[in-house]
């Protein structure tokens, strides 16, 4: 009787150590609130633990993807009742280190933000998953319930859109700044 678990307590602890920060970070990027991110990250691992007997794959990458999937679902649940708190303006807030670096190059973060707002939610999410969470296309595909080919295509489109936005922004910058950037 009973169900065989796929890993020991020690193994689970090791995997926890390996993934807790990136899972927490993933949550924080999307809720922008420390306590809430901790809350969700906790629930991710408790859910994983409760469902461990249903997880038969010992592949670490699969386990990681599974955790991200749980995390994304919980974040989505959170956002159903709460407005997402992490917006692009937080990324390029005027007092952020990034803003200072951009200002050194004469780039107005407000305009950059306006440009990036042209990205829709999915495009921004794909860029964020790739750039911030450093997830490979395959894991992004699993997370978004898309094929890997579709993710690559959307990522390419997102980058192309970003490129065109940057081109327009830089053209604007060139016309308004006389200093050599």
């Amino acid at each position, binding site marked *: *009787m*009973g169900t*065989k*678990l*796929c*890993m*020991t*307590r020690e*193994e*689970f*602890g090791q995997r*926890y150590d390996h993934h*807790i*920060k990136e899972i*927490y*970070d993933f949550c*924080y*990027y999307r809720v*922008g609130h*420390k*306590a*809430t*991110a*901790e*809350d969700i*990250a*906790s629930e991710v*691992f*408790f859910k994983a*633990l*409760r469902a461990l007997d249903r997880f038969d794959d010992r592949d670490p990458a699969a386990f990681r993807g599974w955790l991200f999937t749980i995390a994304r679902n919980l974040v989505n649940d959170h956002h159903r*009742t*709460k407005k997402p708190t*992490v917006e692009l303006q937080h*990324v*390029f807030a005027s007092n*952020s*280190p*990034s803003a200072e*670096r*951009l200002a050194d*190059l004469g*780039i107005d973060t407000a305009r*950059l933000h306006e440009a990036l707002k042209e990205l829709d939610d999915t495009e921004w999410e794909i860029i964020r998953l*790739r*750039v*911030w969470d*450093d997830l490979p296309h395959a894991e992004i595909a699993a997370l978004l319930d898309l094929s890997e080919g579709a993710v690559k295509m959307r990522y*390419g489109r997102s*980058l*192309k859109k*970003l*490129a065109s936005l*940057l*081109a327009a*922004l*830089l053209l604007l*910058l*060139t016309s308004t700044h006389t200093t050599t*950037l």
Partner: protein
Amino acid sequence: MNTLEAIMADLLELEPSLKGKEPQVRAIVAAIVKAKPDTQFDQTFADKLKAQLLVTAPDGAPATRRAWYFSVPAWSLASASAAALLLVVVTQLDMQQNSTPIATPHLPQMAHLARNGFGTLQFTGNTPATMERGGGGEESTRLADDSWTPTVYEFILPSNWMENVQLPTEAPVYTVGRGSIAADISSMLNLDALRNLNLSVYNVSAENSERNISVSYDTANDNLSMYFNNVLYQTEELPTADATWLSEEVLIGKARQYAEQYGIPLEGGTSGEISDQYLVLYARANAQERRTLAATIAPPTAVTVTFRKTIDNLPVYRHGETQITLTPTTGELISLTAPLNWHTNAASTYATLTDTEQIATYFRWGGTVDPTTWYPGQTVIKQQVQLEQPTLVYNYQSVCTEQSNGAAQCNTYLVPSLSATVIPTEEYLFRNDIIIPLSTNQP
């Protein structure tokens, strides 16, 4: 190729017009790459969470999940027609302030079955018990998950279990010989100490009736106390650094001595409560030499619980005519660590929480409830109520099963719970405490 360079290459390929403006593009992309918010990752949070998870996690794979949950003792359902010796080892926990908090809301898990004073235990896999209803008063309101069931393990002792018991060579401070399994449970529960070892002897007659005398050794005070049906009859001092008191024969002999002294018949009569203590190990040898050991959940000496300030829309089960429905919100998280002080007198055992502004409360002997079952034939009314700030309490619960002789056999345990007083309104005039158990039988 790192992420920045990969994105740069992709961008320049996708938008040739960006060529020649690489410094700006690189700055923007670098900003996106590097401008990840500071997530304020807290290693202390991670460590605490890990500790909670590992308390919950089964130990060892492959493992039988069932073994990590609790079940009703089979012996309580078994025929009592055979003469049996019921050996009850009761331990009570240390009341030290600097104890390690138990992880909540999940129940601690039984583990290290091979490392105990009895030898390798075999889990019987019995089904969870259901709770009996009863009692009332200020504790008449309960909230619990529908799947909530009492927390009882049942194990089969190896036939040579007495040989495996390692008696201490001196008066124990934290761990005592036959109580080593209790100590082991204690360590699993992150409890840092055991103070009392109580040994109770049940003599069940062939007529299926029983009386009990319990002999309790208090390691804190080096004295031996005798209870008859949970009423303290006598306390006598015992010499320290003497392990002989731990022998079964000595204690049984003491029990018989007390019985004779007080004229208590060891046969006939009615069955009584097993114990008013809370970490209880039961061992029984019946006519077939089958010994069963069970343990109820032990109370920690302190507990840390995190809950939200605002609690509503949780199902509240209440005796009587009303179901109170609350709605959970994302109120401020409160983390509360409350040390417990335990007190025992002849009439009851109870705990108080101290060193916190949210000082709560008490536990009383008696009064079992079923938080998951409604009284039949009563109207269910859903109402919104407002609660006062909840306090952390330990809520006394017990599970009783009816034996073949009609007597109730009860196991007792405590459930870490939140207690919040219902603020009376015009719509809701009954002032009741809502008791919210934080433990379920499933992690």
